């Protein structure tokens, strides 16, 4: 791994990173980035350890600040630093950032367009036994409604590295980077690949059926795809790693298909299913959408694997659901 304009990795690293999981890898990537990025500032609101930042804090005390348990304050301070030209990355759990401090995000990142990068930890249901207070069920819905904010939802740890690197070395403006998955979540990219900000990544070019997935659930969807192929069906599968206010790329993708399936670890309201529904309705497409998502309710808590199974988001369950659609 090396950071710079090009971020590359090998298959050994991909395996190792997957075992560590996205939160630990965020900390590792920041550690590496600090070597090359003079103006970097990494902030947390008392969740430095949960962000894998212990080593970062010890090695780069001048580039690190914990503001205590004060997420609204965190956004303001990060914005002031960004105004002065620092590259700023901040992290906390998804609902605390996207909802408790959503108005600070609206004013500073949305209205003033200050280029702060928000890393939302443990989104979806990956916080397991910590429960609904810590789940990121509605964060995409909230963030997507605020103008000027890029949203990234990396599929695995390799892609997380690509996304962080891309925001560090390009002037993309403010961003919300949504981390889902846990240590051991399936690897989507076993080898280095060509990541392009905003452009969906084609995992499989199939026929008639289009599957769009986002976040770590892309890995589960890839398992479902393999099962579908064994079953004799060959749908197209794309990784929607970037979710923006304007989704022209989705428009280009879906117009060729009559059956569109979205898969996401987010409420059925306001996330990928909503984005695609809006594109279909507003463009008078005839494609029919079958969303696979979390329900608009507070569900049970338990191990991550149990929750994915409960919500029909494991490879097996996604395969079964798609088979039934067909």
């Amino acid at each position, binding site marked *: 791994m090396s950071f710079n304009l090009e971020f590359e990795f090998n298959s050994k690293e991909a395996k190792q990173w997957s075992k560590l999981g996205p939160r630990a890898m965020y900390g590792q990537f920041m550690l590496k980035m600090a070597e090359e990025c003079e103006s970097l500032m990494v902030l947390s609101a008392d969740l430095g350890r949960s962000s894998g930042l212990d080593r970062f804090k010890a090695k780069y005390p001048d580039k690190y600040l914990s*503001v*205590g348990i004060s997420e609204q304050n*965190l956004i*303001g*301070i990060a914005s*002031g630093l960004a105004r*002065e030209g620092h590259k700023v990355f901040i992290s906390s759990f998804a609902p605390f950032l996207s909802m408790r401090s959503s108005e600070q995000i609206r*004013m500073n990142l949305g209205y003033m367009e200050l280029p702060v990068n928000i890393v939302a930890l443990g989104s979806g249901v990956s916080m397991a036994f910590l429960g609904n207070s810590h789940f990121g069920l509605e964060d995409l819905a909230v963030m997507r409604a605020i103008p000027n904010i890029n949203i990234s939802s990396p599929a695995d740890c390799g892609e997380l590295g690509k996304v962080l690197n891309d925001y560090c070395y390009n002037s993309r403006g403010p961003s919300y980077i949504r981390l889902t998955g846990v240590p051991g979540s399936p690897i989507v990219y076993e080898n280095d690949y060509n990541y392009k900000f905003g452009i969906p990544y084609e995992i499989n070019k199939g026929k008639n059926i289009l599957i769009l997935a986002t976040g770590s659930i892309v890995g589960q969807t890839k398992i479902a795809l393999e099962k579908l192929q064994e079953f004799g069906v060959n749908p197209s599968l794309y990784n929607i790693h970037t979710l923006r206010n304007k989704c022209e790329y989705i428009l280009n993708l879906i117009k060729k298909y009559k059956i569109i399936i979205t898969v996401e670890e987010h409420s059925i309201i306001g996330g990928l299913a909503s984005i695609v529904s809006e594109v279909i309705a507003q463009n008078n497409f005839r494609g029919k959408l079958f969303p696979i998502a979390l329900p608009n309710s507070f569900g049970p808590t338990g191990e991550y694997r149990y929750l994915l199974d409960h919500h029909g988001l494991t490879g097996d369950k996604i395969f079964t659901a798609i088979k039934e659609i067909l």
Partner: protein
Amino acid sequence: MSFDCGQPSHIGGALSIVDILAVLYGGISNFDITGRKNRFILSKGHGVLGLFSVLHHVGKISKEKISTFQKNGSEFIAHPIANHALGIESSNGSLGQGLSYGIGIALSYLKRKNEGQVFVLMGDGECYEGSVWEASITATETKLENMTVIIDCNGYQNDGAIGDKMNARDISKKWRGFGWHVIECDGHDHQRLYLALNHKHKNKPTAIIAKTTKGKGIKFMEDNNDWHHNRLTEKLFDEAMNEL
């Protein structure tokens, strides 16, 4: 501006901060929005009429520009919209957000060894916002001696007098309790303001608790909260101008 636009505007809370702004821009000055100099953030965004007037007097905003105040499509409205060329540092209007933002700038100054002080002006009513106190803790924990907060204690908020635990004396106690160096002063006394605004305390941020009069300078507006947000008739406008 307020009369010209024919609309109600925040007059009372703008008049209470005019002396503070006059001393900041006239006496402390050296404001340069490009950085490495003093910075000013109007956290109580609804006091923006005061800021526009002062920025006009120091030659930052032309008469043509401010004459569009609260007219359709204007960027000079009831709350500041960031415009660095004109000396408006940040967009405000939602209270309790300016201090955290200012802390970010002040921290950057310390890291880069930039001279200059960051001034954040807030209202007494604004101090009800919890985010103010979140920020106040960071400012002391980071020993932000290049940060000066000015609290405009005019004694009123939107719906009337502020609560009895938020008078100037109690607000002083709160800031002192949060570890700030506190200076109490008459917010209309230019000499006292000048000394307070020039003060820098080693290893501590400074809070100036400025006792002010809402609607200062216009008799019928002074301490009359009807002028928090109100429209001037021609008769009242003439009366006010005669007094000034």
